[in-house]
């Protein structure tokens, strides 16, 4: 290799040099590009890329950044949106996060993202930086983050590697989120051996803003300044040895590149406050967080969403590791950084705010109208591209997909084990099982109080946060997924996930408004996985349309597989609901002696894919049937009865069916109940075991004050929705008494419910 640039630290591969040396081999394969993708880069540029350009295209055209395998399917989320669904959407799919109008000039932005693989390698830091990344997405919309949630999936609870992951991931989520002052208001914990080598760490963040504060990631206004601020840039995320060999040091080897990223929650907390101060004083024109693909992503996205051009001097980037090459600086995924566009008049004000918060910044360049993203290294041009070709024109694949041949066999294999004779023991077993046990050991490691606006959190059905202290206007959020249902039927599984999150939000009393999702799947190169993915997206998009709630953003995580074995398809769905006043939120447990307990909905014999079948080691058949009209009616009943003060408690039925719902509602405040299920069995033509363990959808239990019973019944009748009085709250007897079948003292139930996690991880 030629080394004529003796005065420089690196063999800078300039654009000029690239033009002169068309034959020079480049490590595109090592950087993850396919041959046809590399050829396309050459075609776009009309020459070979420089090392820095290659770095940019390779990271931006990766699966993670370009959504090349999923794009063709994700379009349905946009295509299947009606005008009516768009009514409350201020910003739709495509930006860092969607923004929803919740009234009174307030808006909410929320999104869920995955950090699965990094969390397997280094659980604490992987989970921590997952929270950090999603929170920066929320800030970059102009919002104050107000809460986080963490849907998690681990391998078998008794696998020797599980404690490492549980301890690391939970303390990472807590360590980062707690330090940011963001209440954790909910999530999920599921144990299943399919996630053994691929735990799922999804993180959701939600933020609040005034309509006029919405910020977008675009660089407009020729002559406006581009600034990078926050943490310094290190070798994070570049991974192992530098493959950009043509860029390596003249005389020495580059120092090592970290295998994992370490989060600095303190830096991020300061970044939040300092960005909010920038927004409040209208100091930034456009802003973008730095996540995957770092500066490559921020510059190319800002430029292509704005006036189309940007000029950057890369040596201005403040480095943590001075041995980084230009390409590495462009690829680095160092955390806690932001990029903003600032008018020349606001430069001084910007710097004053940075100084106040002691945040480092560097001016990198300015916005141009040339349509080109030009990056220089010490005055020499190392990148000269149309930013759109980097950010938006990545490859798009129509990957082949095919329905798995094994699916028919699995679907035909219905759960047929005999009903247990001892229902009391069965309920105890269920409530102590890894997926149904109390998650307190985990959620007690999260701050749910900070900010003073949390109206409901764990273990209630949805997290509820007040937005406006004057009016009580607020939001509810729930995330759900059932990998087993999706395995049995990915189309229905995705719809069921949406239905459950929707139902949870309505159970808390909020009106469901919008959706975010994180689609966790195996390898898209496996046609069977690709089929699961395609079916899930189709199902979710269809169900969103039917329920009238638009997808506002989300994330796709592929390649979650160990060897040839993929995880269950796991589309995690988050639903956002709105409250006119959070004071009327409905908790999931009853408290008043003598209130009537009603079961809403119809119970069928639906045990396939259920928690009970899972406990018996069975997975086959079809997931529970879904009736979205019934879900809508149920939601309307729950929201209206909350609004009109007809119910004091409501808990939806999902995994574990009525047995789980009754147990949880009793344990919520430690108040018992007398329940009778015989009439229900007769009405729905089922046996007591099915009544308790079936996972039929569109069901909930509510507790109704005596004075409201007539009104409540009238409302159900008017809506033609099945309900049945199944018992009364019994504050005298500290027991769940299912008459004629069993009595479970609450102390015993609580003990069984709460002991499981401490036993394995305490």
């Amino acid at each position: 290799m030629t080394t004529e640039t003796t005065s420089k630290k690196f063999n800078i591969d300039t654009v000029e040099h690239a033009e002169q040396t068309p034959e020079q081999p480049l490590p595109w394969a090592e950087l993850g590009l396919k041959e046809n993708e590399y050829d396309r880069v050459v075609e776009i540029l009309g020459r070979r890329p420089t090392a820095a350009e290659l770095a940019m295209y390779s990271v931006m055209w990766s699966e993670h950044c370009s959504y090349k395998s999923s794009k063709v399917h994700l379009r349905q989320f946009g295509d299947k949106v009606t005008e009516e669904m768009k009514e409350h959407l201020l910003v739709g799919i495509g930006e860092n996060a969607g923004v929803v109008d919740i009234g009174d000039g307030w808006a909410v932005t929320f999104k869920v993202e995955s950090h699965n693989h990094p969390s397997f390698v280094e659980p604490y830091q992987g989970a921590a930086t997952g929270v950090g990344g999603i929170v920066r997405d929320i800030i970059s919309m102009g919002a104050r983050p107000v809460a986080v949630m963490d849907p998690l999936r681990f391998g078998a609870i008794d696998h020797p590697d599980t404690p490492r992951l549980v301890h690391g991931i939970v303390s990472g989520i807590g360590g980062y989120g707690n330090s940011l002052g963001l209440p954790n208001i909910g999530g999920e914990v599921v144990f299943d051996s399919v996630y053994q080598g691929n735990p799922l760490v999804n993180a959701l963040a939600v933020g609040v803003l005034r309509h006029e504060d919405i910020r977008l990631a675009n660089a407009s206004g020729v002559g406006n300044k581009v600034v990078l601020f926050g943490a310094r840039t290190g070798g994070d995320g570049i991974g192992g040895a530098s493959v950009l060999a043509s860029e390596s040091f003249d005389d020495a080897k580059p120092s090592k590149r970290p295998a994992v990223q370490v989060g600095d929650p303190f830096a991020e907390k300061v970044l939040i406050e300092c960005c909010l101060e920038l927004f409040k004083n209208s100091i930034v024109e456009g802003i973008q967080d730095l996540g995957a693909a770092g500066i490559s992503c921020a510059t190319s996205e800002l430029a292509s969403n704005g006036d189309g051009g940007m000029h950057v001097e890369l040596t201005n980037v403040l480095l943590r590791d001075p041995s980084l090459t230009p390409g590495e600086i462009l690829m680095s995924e160092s955390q806690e950084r932001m990029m903003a566009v600032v008018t020349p008049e606001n430069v001084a004000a910007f710097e004053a705010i940075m100084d106040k918060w002691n945040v480092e910044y560097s001016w990198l360049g300015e916005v141009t109208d040339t349509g080109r993203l030009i990056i220089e290294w010490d005055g020499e041009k190392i990148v000269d591209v149309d930013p759109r070709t980097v950010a938006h024109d990545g490859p798009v694949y129509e990957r082949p997909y095919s329905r798995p041949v094994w699916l028919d066999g699995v679907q035909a294999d219905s759960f047929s084990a005999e009903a247990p004779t001892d229902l009391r023991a069965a309920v105890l077993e269920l409530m102590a099982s890894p997926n149904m046990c109390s998650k307190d050991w985990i959620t007690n490691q999260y701050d749910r109080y900070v900010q003073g606006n949390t109206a409901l959190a764990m273990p209630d059905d949805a997290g509820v946060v007040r937005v406006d202290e004057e009016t009580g206007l607020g939001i509810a959020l729930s995330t759900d997924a059932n990998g087993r249902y999706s395995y049995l039927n990915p189309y229905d599984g995705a719809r069921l996930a949406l239905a459950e999150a929707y139902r949870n939000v309505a159970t808390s009393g909020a009106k469901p408004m919008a959706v975010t999702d994180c689609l966790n799947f195996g390898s898209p190169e496996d046609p069977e996985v690709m089929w699961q993915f395609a079916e899930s997206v189709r199902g979710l998009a269809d169900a969103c349309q039917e329920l009238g709630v638009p997808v506002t953003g989300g994330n796709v995580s592929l390649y979650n597989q160990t060897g040839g074995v993929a995880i269950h398809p796991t589309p995690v769905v988050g639903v956002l609901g709105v409250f006119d006043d959070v004071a009327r939120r409905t908790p999931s447990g009853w408290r008043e002696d003598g209130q009537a307990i009603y079961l809403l909905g119809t119970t069928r014999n639906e045990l396939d894919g259920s928690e009970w079948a899972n406990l018996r080691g069975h997975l086959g058949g079809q997931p529970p049937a879904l009736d979205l009209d019934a879900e809508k009616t149920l939601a309307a009943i729950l929201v209206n009865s909350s609004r009109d003060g007809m119910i004091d408690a409501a808990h939806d039925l999902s995994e574990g069916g009525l047995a789980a719902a009754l147990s949880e509602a009793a344990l919520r405040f430690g108040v018992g109940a007398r329940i009778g299920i015989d009439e229900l069995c007769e009405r729905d033509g089922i046996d007591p075991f099915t009544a308790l363990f079936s996972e039929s959808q569109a069901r909930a239990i509510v507790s109704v004050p005596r004075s409201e019973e007539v009104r409540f019944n009238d409302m159900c009748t008017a809506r033609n929705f099945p309900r049945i009085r199944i018992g009364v709250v019994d504050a005298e007897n500290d027991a769940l008494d299912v008459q004629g079948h069993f009595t479970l003292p609450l102390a015993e139930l609580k003990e069984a419910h709460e002991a499981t996690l401490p036993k394995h991880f305490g």
Partner: protein
Amino acid sequence: MTIETPLIGHSAAEVVDESLSGVRVGVVTFPGTLDDRDALRAVRIAGGTGVQLWHGDHDLKDVDAVIIPGGFSYGDYLRAGAISRFAPLMEQITAAASGGSLPVLGICNGFQVLTEAHLLPGSMVKNNHLHFLCKDQRLLVENSSTAWTSSYGEGSEIVVPLKNQDGQFVADERTLDELEGEGRVVFRYVGGNPNGSRRDIAGITNEHGNVVGLMPHPEHAVEPGFGPDSSAFGEVEVRGGVDGLGIFTSVLQKLVNK
């Protein structure tokens, strides 16, 4: 100019005593402070006027009392409170508080800052179970003659949230004996020690009774609907516990009567 989100300063929550609004209570914000808005809200609900103070300033803005709120100032890096105690504003606070005049309350991280600044004895180390723990905690108010506890009857109990990772109070035996002997243990954990704190101590005061530090968070138990599910004073609505309010009314009443 846009409104700060979430909205602060306009809570619909009922104010306890309007006649206290003349009392100005400063709440210090360090980089990494988290519960400053919550402390300001608590002061407001109690009836006082909250004043935001910035750690880097040299001016106490004529406040009548100071709260150092919870959070992770400087990330709790090195030791909780270790870096914050050197803030310029801490000099003013130390000067005004050590003589016994300025009432100062340190909550959680604020308590840690006060011990690092030697305004209060002892220190906090990691919880004995090594985890962050968030729970509703029952406390015994053992000393109701401090600037911050006079609204409570001697020996009352309260329920307020506890949430921390480094909450285990430690001191040498002599200091502990001295604290006990002088009645300077203000709050003690009841119903089980959540973190291994020596002698179940949750909060202490200095010799003058003007400086109080405690690990649990009274500012999270001041507004119905957003507090703990229970109260030591009897049945409450869901999340209706407001047992922490007395801390804030104590200081306001004391100052207004001065």
